């Protein structure tokens, strides 16, 4: 659905987006994470063809965004960050206008408009002037607008920014509904939001893509669930079998180090694996030189990555 290759954007001297490449398949829900100023919005603006990149290419549904911008934009529904709208128009007027410029056929226009209004909970607000709506409703109008031409791909830039907790919940619910029919790319710096809604998370920092993984993998690796690493001297087959047989151990990865040392990465749901391994090592007389728990929440990882302390491999 999205194919991004070596995308780079320079703004008079400083690099906002630095050589990003990724792919998104049809039907995926991607969370685009990063601190403020990391280059999320710039990347999204390039995906929609609003900004021209300094280098690189973007293809949406096989169409190059910069060679055939109008054709590519037919596939994209985009809601910019602050959800800009014409405040002097009525909701119906605005949606009709947007449907017309997006090329929704006149015959189906009214039906389409009413359908998105219903989808976004705007059925009773058709006659209201947009400038007088609350922030949450404006957000819904923006979302309705991005859905009008039934795009394959929805790009939402911080859809819940500036909303109160109830509104956030509503918008989130709406996004979950949308995810059933569209490919979705949404940016946020609210981590639980990304966790809840997205299948895959991409973390961008200082213009670079620093992590990209499925939410399950990230969660497994990062959330509560512990990853223990241990360096043990001895026969790898025996030690491996005993470690695998321990209570609560899901998966054991093994690597041989020099000097007969074995490096194990032990995934487990249990909290006390380290003491069990220690007890076991004592009773069997193994030499143990390292026992380390890598237990991090998504927030910790996010902070670590975006501060540059850690690097996760980019898929």
């Amino acid at each position, binding site marked *: 659905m999205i194919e991004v290759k070596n995308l780079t954007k320079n703004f008079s001297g400083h690099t906002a987006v630095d050589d990003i490449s990724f792919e998104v398949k049809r039907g995926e829900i991607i969370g685009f994470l990063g601190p403020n100023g990391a280059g999320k919005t710039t990347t999204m603006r390039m995906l929609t063809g609003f*900004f021209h990149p300094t280098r690189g290419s973007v293809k949406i549904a096989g169409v190059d965004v910069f060679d055939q911008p109008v054709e590519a934009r037919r596939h*994209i529904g985009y809601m910019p960050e*602050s959800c*800009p*709208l014409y405040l*002097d128009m009525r909701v119906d007027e605005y949606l009709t206008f*947007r449907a*017309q*410029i*997006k090329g929704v056929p006149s015959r189906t226009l009214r039906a389409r408009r009413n359908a998105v209004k219903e989808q976004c909970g705007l059925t009773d607000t058709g006659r209201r002037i947009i400038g007088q709506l609350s922030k949450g409703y404006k957000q819904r109008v923006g979302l309705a607008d991005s859905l009008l031409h039934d795009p394959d791909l929805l790009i939402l830039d911080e859809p819940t920014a500036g909303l109160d907790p109830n509104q956030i919940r509503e918008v989130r619910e709406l996004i979950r509904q949308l995810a059933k029919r569209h490919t979705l790319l949404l940016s946020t710096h609210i981590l639980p939001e990304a966790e809840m809604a997205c299948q895959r998370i991409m973390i961008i920092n200082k213009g670079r893509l620093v992590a990209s993984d499925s939410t399950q993998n990230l969660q497994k690796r990062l959330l509560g669930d512990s990853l223990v690493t241990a360096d043990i001297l001895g026969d790898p087959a025996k030690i491996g079998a005993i470690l695998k047989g321990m209570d609560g151990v899901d998966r054991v990865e093994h690597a041989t180090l020099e000097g007969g040392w074995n490096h194990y990465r032990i995934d487990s749901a249990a909290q006390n694996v380290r003491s069990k391994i220690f007890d076991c090592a004592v009773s069997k007389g193994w030499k143990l030189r390292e026992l380390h728990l890598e237990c991090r929440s998504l927030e910790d990882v996010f902070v670590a990555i975006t501060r540059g302390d850690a690097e996760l491999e980019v898929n």
Partner: protein
Amino acid sequence: MRTFFALWKRELSALFLSPIAYVMLMFFLLVTGCGFYWLVKENLELTRAVQGLMVVIWFCMLIVLPILTMRTFAEERKSGTFETMLTAPVHESCVVFAKFAGVLTFFLMMCAPTLLYLLIVRYLAPETAMLLDLGPIVGGYWVVGLIASAFIALGLLASAMTSNQIIAAISTFSIMSVIFFGGLFEPHLSKNPMVRDVGGYLSSALHLMEAARGIFDSRTIVLYLSLTCFFLFGTIKAVEARR
């Protein structure tokens, strides 16, 4: 084409939804109305008064056009709707032409009531009917339209290059004034015949006076049409560049 009409309609309704447009309408009708009254009262020769009316309209353009065009792109840039507009499947040129057409339509609607002035004269003084030829009037309004399109295009260009409406208005106003006053005074002040000739070619006031006398000059048409195309082209490029 449908996209163009939707954008054009939006532009026109945006003008009618803003109070500035009504203030401008009032200003325009007040100045042209008073000007024409004064011209008719002082000049018994009616053809002269029509010429004068054209020049008064031109003078009003100096104020009205920068203010009507300043919001076109600058406001959208500031409010962010520029982004939603240009990420919809629309061509930049379509947006520019629609905005141009919207402001031009508004301006022509603004001018339409001045035709009533001539009808009123005709009603009040039927004996002048033979003096008022259709040719010069049509010619005068035609050139007013041409001049307006050139400067509306200039205003769009200025507005597309900034997100500050005041800057857009003042730059449009400055360039218009150079052409207006340059063309008006330079030919009479300078002893250099070259300057006088060139100034004469560029003087909108002279173009209007000639057109309102019934003289059809293709150079005028070429000048304003090429200026319009040039500024519109510049605007499209400025919109494509974004930042």
